[in-house]
Structures are given as structure tokens and as C-alpha cells.
């Protein structure tokens, strides 16, 4: 089974319910969409992420927040890419919302008001990547000790030598 080329053309992906719903809601929020390896990723503009999630939730297009995580593409800018994995149990479909974050001191809106389950996920991202979530009820370190310096999962965090 050779890999099929990813579909990145927004026109071709318009028929998918999630893409259609987001485009109908706010064209400016959707930066880009990609269908690769049977998985749909939609890039959302940073300031719209919570509203986009709220819209999908209100439309009944997603009912479960599977995961929130991040990846560091240092030294490329924008270096961070947040990934929200949403699941619709009714339609048996997953979608990944992605947000690009510029700069070393990035922040974006928390989705905890929509899904309380994001609490731990966002705390983990804050702890290990140093991304701030605005409106999070309790944004403190969760894995590392309270007095730890630095964010270990960043690519520029030293992996050897004295700390």
C-alpha cells in the first residue's frame, strides 16, 4: 500500500462536514487544510481556536476532546504547532485542529471552558513546552517539580550536561 499524496487543496476538502462547517462559520479562521494518511488536519488561526472548537461542539460535529498536544519545530518559525484531536463518536470520525504559534513566549486561548478534560492536557503542554493558555483555571506545572527551570520538550532544551 504505497502512500497516497496528501490533499492540501481547500476546494477539494470542502465537502467534508467539519471543513464545510468551519468555512461557513468564518472563512478567516481556516488557514489551511490537509488530508494525509486518512487523517484530516485543519490549520486554525491562533485567535480563533476556542471559538472554532465551540462552533464544532455546538454544531454536534464533535463530542469528545481526545487529546491536546504540541510539537516544536525549532529553529523554524513559527516554531510550535498545537494539535487538538477531536472525535465524533456519532459519526465515528476524527479531526485534528492545528494552530501555529510564533515566538518563544507563545500563548493562546484555553479550551477548558468547553471541555474540562483539557485541563490536564493544557497543563502538560504548558509544563513541557512553555505555552500559556489564557483562561485556564489552574495553569501550573504538572509533570516537573514546581521550581523547575525551562521546558524540557522544547528542541533547544539541553539533553546533556549540567543544568
Amino acid at each position, binding site marked *: *500500500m*504505497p*502512500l*497516497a499524496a*496528501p490533499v492540501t487543496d481547500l476546494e477539494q476538502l470542502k465537502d467534508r462536514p467539519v471543513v464545510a462547517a468551519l468555512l461557513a462559520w468564518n472563512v478567516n479562521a481556516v488557514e489551511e487544510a490537509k488530508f*494525509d*494518511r*486518512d*487523517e484530516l*488536519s485543519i490549520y486554525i488561526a491562533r485567535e480563533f481556536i476556542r471559538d472554532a472548537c465551540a462552533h464544532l461542539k455546538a454544531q454536534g460535529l464533535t*463530542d*469528545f*476532546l*481526545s*487529546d491536546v*498536544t504540541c*510539537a*516544536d*519545530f525549532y529553529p523554524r518559525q513559527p516554531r510550535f504547532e498545537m*494539535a487538538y*484531536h477531536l472525535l465524533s*463518536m456519532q459519526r*465515528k470520525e*476524527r479531526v*485534528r485542529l492545528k494552530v501555529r504559534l510564533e515566538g518563544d513566549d507563545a500563548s493562546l486561548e484555553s479550551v477548558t471552558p468547553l*471541555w*474540562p*478534560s483539557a*485541563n*490536564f*492536557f493544557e497543563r502538560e503542554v504548558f509544563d*513541557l513546552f512553555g505555552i500559556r493558555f489564557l483562561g485556564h483555571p489552574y495553569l501550573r*506545572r*504538572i*509533570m*516537573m*517539580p514546581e521550581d523547575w527551570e525551562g521546558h*524540557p*520538550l522544547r528542541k533547544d532544551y539541553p*539533553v546533556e550536561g549540567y543544568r
Partner: protein
Amino acid sequence: MGHLNANPVLDAAADKTMILNMGPQHPSTHGVLRLLLEIDGEAVVRMMPDIGFLHTGIEKTCEAKFYQQVVPLTDRIDYLCPMVNNLCYVLAVEKLLGMEIPPRAQWMRVMLAELQRISSHLVWLGTHAMDIGAMSVFLYCFREREELLRIYEMVSGQRMMTSYFRIGGLALDPPLGFFEKVKKFLDTFPEKVDEYENLLTGNRIFIDRLKDVAHISAEDGLLIGLSGPSLRASGVDFDIRRDMPYSSYEKFKFKVPVSKDGDVWARYVCRVQELRESREIAKQALEGLPDGPTKADAPKVVLPDREKMKTQMEALIYHFKIVTEGFTVPAGEVYQTIESPRGEMGYYVVSDGTAKPMRVHMRSPSYANLQALPQMCEGRLIADVVAAIGSIDIVLGEIDR
């Protein structure tokens, strides 16, 4: 929990609660979970889990390893079902590579994953019953678990950290006598489950400790990120094995136990039913196991057989290349989920086109399920906290990673 309280108490009469520290060495926290309990007499007013004592930075370590070297690390995430973790990771990398796995390997994976589910549920049942006070069930459960560990040892050489599933198939063909042993286990297992149920299901004390305790509704469960048997016990009929099948689960017939009650008792009933269903799936996999190779035909990814290495120059070269410089994976990202014994396990793997993963993230079911614990326990007694922890079946290795 002083730092939690923005308004310090000035009125002495209003200051009725005290903070109780439960864990991290408490035996019924199933590992190194620390719970901060704000209690009013015996009742829990607020609860806050404190985790991270077992944090080993596995996600960071993965970034420094070749793709095939990550497999042994995944064993150590959820040490009660290492092969399920292996399965999730190898499925993710195979999806990144666009690789086809031979049917025999897929069915073997299903069979072993279900056996792992049984052994994981046995540890849960034994420890959960012991927390409640039924000591002897633990011994019965570990008797059967021991048999399963011997089966894993037979097939992989290790009892616990098996690393048996590899990218592209299985590490080895199963040895002679393996299938007979699995058959013998599966044939006798239902009566063993009857035995546990005889000890617990009709037991008045056990029922009283579990019924209507730590209740959570389906809506709350979905919002707080609960998954797996814990969510099905609240009435959400969703199982990734059935609804979004992977590794040829669509070819198996099985029921998904669902309950409406959403209390500790419902979670107990669902998991015990799952023991029986897993046995059914493993039996189907054993009886219908197709013939053929157990490794994909991808010499650049899959290590060659030992015999070929001794006779064929090419195989030796491929072996040398894979071991010394790994294999490259086309750039991209996948989020692969499977139904682990505890719920939705997901591996988010990002590749940048090199031989090492750029990012491996594990969405561990225990981590999300733990968030539901305060909601289950607040307003109830301290003794119920122990029952609630047992009922969501957490593994701290998976939470802290």
C-alpha cells in the same frame, strides 16, 4: 492546599475543613499518586490529584532514538499491558510508512492484545477487590495472570517488557507448543471468571461498598475525558475496536458491555464482562489464525531472519543498515488510537523525514480518566475514594510517562 485558596479564612467558625494528604506511598493509590483531600469530618469537600512522581521523560527520550528503538520504551508506559502499547506505536509508524501487514501477524496481534487485556483486567480485579477488603480474590487473579505471563515469556522471551510487536509485523514466529498452551488457557478461563464472580458478584459487603458510589453521568464523563470501560459503564456505547477498527478487528464478533448506572459497581460489571468477551476474541483469533508470514515484505524496514543473514549478503547489508542508521520515514503526522484496557490510547507521531521521530506523544487513557476522580469523590466519604481509584483502573507509569 493553601495555595489553592485565593481568600484566606479569617473567620474561625468558617474554618471547618482540614487537608489530608493521601499518598504517594498509600497502597491503594496503585502507584505513586498523591491526592490532596480537603475534608470536613469524613466527607471529602475537595480533591486535587498531584502527579509527576514517576515522570521519566519518555517522550523526550523517544526523540533521540531510531523508530525501532522506541518500541521497548513503549512497554514501560503502561506496564500492565505492554503489548497493547507496542501495538499502538507500531500501528502509528506503519501508518506513517504506508505499510501493509500480513494477516497472520495482524491476527496474532489481536490475540495477544486480548490476552493482555485479560491479564491487565486481572490485576485490576485483584487489587480493586483487595482495596475493598476481599483479600483472597487477589491470589486467584494472580494465579491466572501467572499462566498468561508464561505465555508471553514463551512467545517473546520476557514476562513483562515484551517488545514483541515490531514495525512491520512480529519479532519472531511463535514457538512450538504455543498455540496449545493458549488454547488450554482459553478453555479453562471461563470457569475461573465464574470463580471470581462467585466470590464477589453476590457478596453483600462488596455490593454495599460499590453500589451508588462515585457516580458519574455520561455527559460529565464525555466532558471530563473519560474513556474505555469507565465511560461505557456510564452508558456511552463506544468501543474503538468495534467502531473504528484497527488491526483487522472488524473480522471478529464480540459484544461491548455497556451499563447505565455509572457507579463503581457498573464499572466492575463492565470489566468482568470484558474478561469474557476478550476470551471470545482471543479464541476466534486462535481458531481462525491464517497461515503465512508474520513480517511484512519490506527489507528496508523489517530486520531479516537470522538464517537469511547467514546465507545472503543482501540480508546482512540490510540488517547492518537498519541497526546502525535506522530507516527513514516520510514526513507527516498521524494520531493512531486503539482501545487499551483502560480506554482510548493514542500515539501522536510526527516525522520530519529522518530516521528518528520528531515528536512522539502518548495520549494515555489513565491520564484523562484521573481527571474524573475529583468529580466522582467530592461530597463522598474518604473510604469511597479508595473504591473510586480502583474503579477507574489507573496506571501511574502511563500517567506520568
